[in-house]
């Protein structure tokens, strides 16, 4: 009879009999996805709060993308539970000495803030669309439904006079301003969940929340940069074929110009946050080696021997050093920045992996080790939830949500206005 985690755990040397890798791939994905949420939001705030005007185009994109990622942030948590249908208890009967219990409050606060900000950003669009549909003669059923939805989305605020728009603009700034600390909290507390586990020598450090926030911003910016580039490339292709796209210019030269500009500037911010993230991670590593507490022998064996390839090759070299050089190299191009972003995303994923799985790679006895083998073949509910099907579900959902959201809050709408 298999215990949870037994199917993918190999023990070596002396390990407590009840120890297994109980937190598997979904818990690797959880901080990864929340990190993307927080990072995308911070990127959008660079424009809304700090007035980095050049990022206007990608800021709106990042905001909507962050919103699409948000519901996905809780999916890994739900999927890893042994009783997924009891997950709601965390919201209904939170036990406040637990870091996880804050999830409901932090998550819903953040959700409310992002939703409010998006509403203010798109209110004009809602009103205009609803009005246009109202005045449209001989509407079909779809148009009637769309009119109903867009009218509902205005929440009854139909005033789009310049004075009202000015107020909206202020509100956006305020929401984005409140959003930054909340986004950091959303992710910092994910770091706290790990950092406060005193039983785990690798996790327990007060640096953990800060490291998580920095790597969150890195991964969020990288994903926005990548998806933005892909979407822009698609629009360029449409422009070349002279096919009318849904929104915005069809002027190839302009799309290229906007893309080039946004990507290069975003890449600069990406580098700044990468430096901060790597500095903190290395500080943590050096500090552990220098203080050499009781756990260090076991940790050293994991970091420098057993997981050395994952830590130093996959995470630090391919995930950090390589993209850093790519971004730093003179005359950066959009393509190079996008490829570097792929490596950055991979690097942050490996960092989450090395923290979550690496933290369970040694036994609390400090005499033994555990190895996690990803269940490639799903054979039971456990390996479906915490194997390929579960991972794919979490990976694909944000893009589907983004596609649907884009129907109501189109990310490239601003360009049309500018042209007009």
């Amino acid at each position, binding site marked *: *009879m*298999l*215990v*949870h*985690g*037994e199917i993918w755990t*190999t*023990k*070596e*040397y*002396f*390990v*407590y*009999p*009840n*120890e*297994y890798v*109980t*937190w598997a791939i979904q818990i690797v994905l959880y901080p990864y996805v929340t990190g993307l949420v927080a990072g995308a939001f911070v990127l959008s705030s660079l424009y809304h709060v700090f007035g980095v005007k050049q990022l206007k185009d990608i800021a709106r994109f990042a905001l909507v993308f962050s919103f699409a990622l948000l519901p996905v942030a809780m999916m890994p*948590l739900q999927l*890893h*539970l*042994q*009783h997924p249908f*009891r*997950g709601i*208890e*965390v919201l209904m*009967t*939170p*036990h406040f*000495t*637990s*870091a*996880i*219990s804050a*999830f409901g409050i932090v998550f819903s606060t953040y959700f409310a803030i992002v939703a409010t900000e998006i509403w203010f950003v798109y209110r004009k669009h809602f009103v205009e669309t609803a009005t246009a549909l109202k005045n449209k003669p001989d509407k079909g059923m779809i148009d009637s439904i769309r009119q109903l939805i867009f009218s509902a989305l205005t929440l009854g605020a139909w005033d789009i006079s310049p004075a009202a728009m000015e107020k909206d603009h202020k509100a956006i700034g305020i929401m984005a301003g409140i959003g930054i600390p909340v986004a950091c909290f959303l992710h910092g507390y994910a770091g706290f*969940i790990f950092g*406060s*586990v*005193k*039983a*785990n020598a690798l996790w327990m450090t007060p640096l953990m929340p800060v490291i998580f926030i920095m790597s969150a911003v890195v991964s969020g910016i990288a994903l926005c940069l990548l998806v933005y580039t892909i979407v822009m490339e698609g629009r360029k292709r449409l422009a070349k074929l002279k096919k009318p796209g849904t929104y915005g210019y069809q002027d190839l030269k302009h799309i290229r110009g906007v893309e080039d500009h946004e990507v290069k500037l975003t890449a600069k911010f990406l580098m700044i946050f990468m430096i901060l993230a790597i500095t903190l991670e290395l500080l943590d590593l050096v500090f552990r080696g220098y203080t050499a507490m009781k756990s260090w022998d076991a940790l050293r064996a994991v970091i420098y021997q057993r997981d050395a390839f994952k830590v130093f090759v996959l995470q630090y070299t391919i995930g950090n050093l390589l993209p850093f050089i790519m971004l730093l190299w003179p005359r950066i191009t959009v393509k190079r920045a996008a490829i570097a972003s792929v490596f950055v995303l991979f690097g942050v994923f490996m960092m989450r992996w090395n923290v979550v799985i690496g933290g*369970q790679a040694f*036994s*609390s*006895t*400090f*005499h*033994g080790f555990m*190895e996690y083998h990803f269940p490639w073949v799903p054979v039971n509910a456990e390996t479906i939830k915490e194997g390929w099907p579960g991972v794919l579900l979490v990976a694909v959902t944000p893009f589907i949500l983004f596609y649907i959201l884009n129907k109501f809050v189109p990310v490239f709408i601003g360009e049309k206005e500018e042209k007009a």
Partner: protein
Amino acid sequence: MERRDFIKSAIVVVAGAAVPMSALELMNPRDVLAANPNLKWAFLVDTTKCVGCGMCVKACKTENDIPWTANVSRTWVERYVVTKEGKVWADCPKQARDGFTSPLLDENAAGKISVDPNDIAKGFFVPKLCNQCDNPPCAQVCPVGATYKTPDGPILVDRSWCIGCGYCIQSCPYGARFFHPIYHVADKCTWCYHRIHHGMKTACVGACPFGARQIGNLKDPNDPVTLAVLDSRIGVLKSYFGTKPQAFYIGLSKEVD
């Protein structure tokens, strides 16, 4: 005194007394007893008496419905072998439910290790179980309060409320917690809470042929466990975590943690 004056004064007295009186509380003797229980369970393990027969693990698995073949257990026994060069070997084959029947050490994927008897400086057994900490990290981190500390010591899990997040399993430094293979909720040793409340001993205490395990009440000054805790040289496991374990060990060695 006129009747009218009497009533007036009475109203003043009642109104004036109401405020300070409201600070007083009607006490329920049960509540008082629960808040100041005359029970505080403690466990005493005399490692010098343990021979590694595994009867305690057998008894525990049977008593507490932990599937026999599942590779988890609420209690287990560890074997330590220290060589003359100071190398420490330890193992716990099948949670020691069948006892230690082989001189070979079961090092899991690293295989069976044979240590030359002439190289052995010392060897001993250490029974382990939940420490029912006074500052339990497992109860602290439960996001839904499904695991909680009872007033008399043991920490319990509500099987109908546990969501199975595994946070408590991660937070226990002693590896005392695991997922129950049938109920899929966190499970742990309760010091047989269902038994000790009826005046019985825990299953493992009852099964130990050598008296290596004892359970007692620290609030009872004449309890043998209390006496031993007070006047023997005892240790606890991993005290540096600040968990305040309530399982006390006689004859702990520095290799054990």
